[in-house]
């Protein structure tokens, strides 16, 4: 169920360019994706902040403790140096001159640092007896800033420290690691004040800090992944039943009335499932009931029509028999036979229309498709209606710019539609000329019948396809229509995948247009014939 949103974008990850779109899609479609993403983002921010704080304070602590250590170490070294200097007999200038090296020895014994600088404090008069400055253990004079040197020079009892970047080795000055230089004053007998600088390498502290930060980062990522996974699972528990319910209602809506949600457990989803199933049961019951009723009614209509056929056959045979012999009757009886004959025929038409519409209602109509030309069918129908048209003083004009090619259709039904449309046009055309237009395009063939008779009002147009509906009940009927003609025609068009449209305006006439798809089941992009007066009038 949860894979639904993912399945849609099965291969989106192969095309990085589509990632943003895929993410937006997943965001709007999947509650699960949204929830996991929000949770991961928020917890990620929290973990990031925590990690930064921890990293900062651990780094601070580490630095501070290493600094303290360095200061202690330097202090010890300075005191030992000073005390050993104080103990020196300074009467001999050579000894004094060698004190510089003596300091180095003491420092190396007392301190862990091998980096040292020994220099004469500034501001003292030059003295050839004084020991010379030197550096040792990779210390460089440039590392000692003037500020540090001045600070050390100002007070004698205090240790001063300064962070520096120590070069890793002499060859590559760009690579450095952190360090601290601690400076102090020492007093040499007779030679004056000197400054002692000791350098301490803090790279081990940096490594520790790096390790801590790496660990924090890994732990953070693992934690975010875990939170994401947990959210995914939890949301899945919640979303899965909802998705199941959604899928089930979709199937129910699609007509699968048997489908139900499984009712397991006692939780809130079971309640949902129970009420959903109850709704589905009730729907199914009502639909089945309605279907049965409708079936019963359709069968009734069909049965009645069939049952009527046998007596109607007898009546028809009898009326024909009488009609054929009406010359032998007196005038009244002869007229009676004529009326009987005409009305039996009308009754016959009505019955077959009724049967046809009941067949459509029952959905038991099957098409017998054969290639046929709409123009040819129109010509046949026009020929058939020519006498009636002449009797009404109407002229039938065929305008066929297209539609000659053969298209699969049930010719019997299409012929029936055309006959019906032309018959109606003659009946309502008031003797004005009637255009029968046939045309085709890439997707459809169409036939329009345009009369210039009395037309219909807009509300009438909405009813023309209703069964047994008559535009003007008071009007005398010249052609014995059954009132089912257009309803059947519309069904005939629909079962072909086509349609009949109508345009009409009072006083201007009507235009009925039949449009059929060129291919069976194919779509109709547009009807080849425009519906309306302006275009048809011009032809």
């Amino acid at each position: 169920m949860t894979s639904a949103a993912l399945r849609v974008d099965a291969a989106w990850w192969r095309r990085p360019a589509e990632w943003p779109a895929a993410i937006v899609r997943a965001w709007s479609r999947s509650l699960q994706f949204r929830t996991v993403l929000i949770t991961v983002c928020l917890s990620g921010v929290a973990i990031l902040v925590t990690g930064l704080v921890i990293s900062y304070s651990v780094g601070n602590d580490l630095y501070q403790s290493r600094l303290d250590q360095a200061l202690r170490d330097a202090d010890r070294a300075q005191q030992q140096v000073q005390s050993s200097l104080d103990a020196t007999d300074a009467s001999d200038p050579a000894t004094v001159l060698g004190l510089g090296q003596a300091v180095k020895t003491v420092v190396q014994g007392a301190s862990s640092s091998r980096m040292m600088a020994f220099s004469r404090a500034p501001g003292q008069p030059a003295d050839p007896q004084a020991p010379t400055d030197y550096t040792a253990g990779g210390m460089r004079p440039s590392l000692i800033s003037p500020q540090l040197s001045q600070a050390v020079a100002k007070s004698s009892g205090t240790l001063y420290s300064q962070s520096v970047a120590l070069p890793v080795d002499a060859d590559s000055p760009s690579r450095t690691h952190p360090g601290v230089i601690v400076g102090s004053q020492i007093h040499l007998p007779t030679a004056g004040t000197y400054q002692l600088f000791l350098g301490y390498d803090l790279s081990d502290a940096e490594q520790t800090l790096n390790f801590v930060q790496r660990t924090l980062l890994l732990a953070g990522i693992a934690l975010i992944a875990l939170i994401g996974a947990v959210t995914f699972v939890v949301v899945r528990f919640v979303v899965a039943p909802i998705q199941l319910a959604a899928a089930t209602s979709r199937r129910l809506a699609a007509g699968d009335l048997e489908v139900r949600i499984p009712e397991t457990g006692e939780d809130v989803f079971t309640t949902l499932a129970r009420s959903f199933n109850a709704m589905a049961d009730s729907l199914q019951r009502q639909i089945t009931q309605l279907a049965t009723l409708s079936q019963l009614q359709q069968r009734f209509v069909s049965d009645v029509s069939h049952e009527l056929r046998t007596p109607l056959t007898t009546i028809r045979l009898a009326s024909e028999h009488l009609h054929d012999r009406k010359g032998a009757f007196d005038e009244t009886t002869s007229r009676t036979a004529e009326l009987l004959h005409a009305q039996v025929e009308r009754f016959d038409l009505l019955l077959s229309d009724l049967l046809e519409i009941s067949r459509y209602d029952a959905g038991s109509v099957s098409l017998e498709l054969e290639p046929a030309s709409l123009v040819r069918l129109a010509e046949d129908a026009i020929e058939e209606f020519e006498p009636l048209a002449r009797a009404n003083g109407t002229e039938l004009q065929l305008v066929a710019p297209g539609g000659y090619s053969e298209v699969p259709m049930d010719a019997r039904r299409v012929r029936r539609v055309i006959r019906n449309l032309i018959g109606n046009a003659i009946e309502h055309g008031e003797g004005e000329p009637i255009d029968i237009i046939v045309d085709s395009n890439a997707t459809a063939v169409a036939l329009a019948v345009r009369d210039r008779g009395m037309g219909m009002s807009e509300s009438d147009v909405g009813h023309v396809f209703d069964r047994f509906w008559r535009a003007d009940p008071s009007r005398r009927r010249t052609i014995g229509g059954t009132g089912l003609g257009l309803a059947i025609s519309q069904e005939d068009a629909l079962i072909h995948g086509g349609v009949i449209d109508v345009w009409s305006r009072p006083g201007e006439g009507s235009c009925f247009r039949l449009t059929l798809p060129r291919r069976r089941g194919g779509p109709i992009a547009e009807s080849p014939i425009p519906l309306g007066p302006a275009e048809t009038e011009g032809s």
Partner: protein
Amino acid sequence: MTTRILVVDDDTALAEMIGIVLRSEGFDPVFCADGAQAVDAFRQASPDLVLLDLMLPGLDGIEVAERIRASSGTPIIMLTAKSDTADVVRGLESGADDYMVKPFNPKELVARVRARLRPSSAGAASQSVQVGDLTIDVAAHEVRRGDTRINLTPLEFDLLLALANKPQQVFTREMLLEQVWGYHYKADTRLVNVHVQRLRAKVEHDPDNPRIVQTVRGVGYRAGT
């Protein structure tokens, strides 16, 4: 000698009215109102043609048609209140030569009856026609494969003969309807389909792979050589 027609219909009013129409056209109608007795009535009257209602008490029209067909090739025209495909095809497959949907008019009825009673129009062509490994003896109304006689109804005989007389010609279903059934207007081409099936079942070695009555796709049928 008048032509005798057996009318099998349970609706006595309709049967009587059909009788009046037939009698006024010079036929001699006999009646039967029950499906179960129809076959006996057929044997007694030995009619030249049967008008058979599809829905009958006792035995339905389809079964009656099958039983009559089992022993005789007498033309049968079904009368049916249903024009639905399944019933019509079932009726034709059971052996009926033609059908009429109620309500029909008397002229149509008489025209169909006459068409079925009309002697085979192809008789004049020649005495004997060869089609595949079949020999059609026109005068004796017989079809033989070697020495074996194949029983065909008059309609099936006419159908085979019409095709065999012009082996080079492809017949559309409409042409066959006109030539064999005597329809002069567009009628139900299922008549042709069903009867071609029945004919093939009798004359072909393998009805699924026909050699004598061949289908020409999209056009119609032709006799094989």
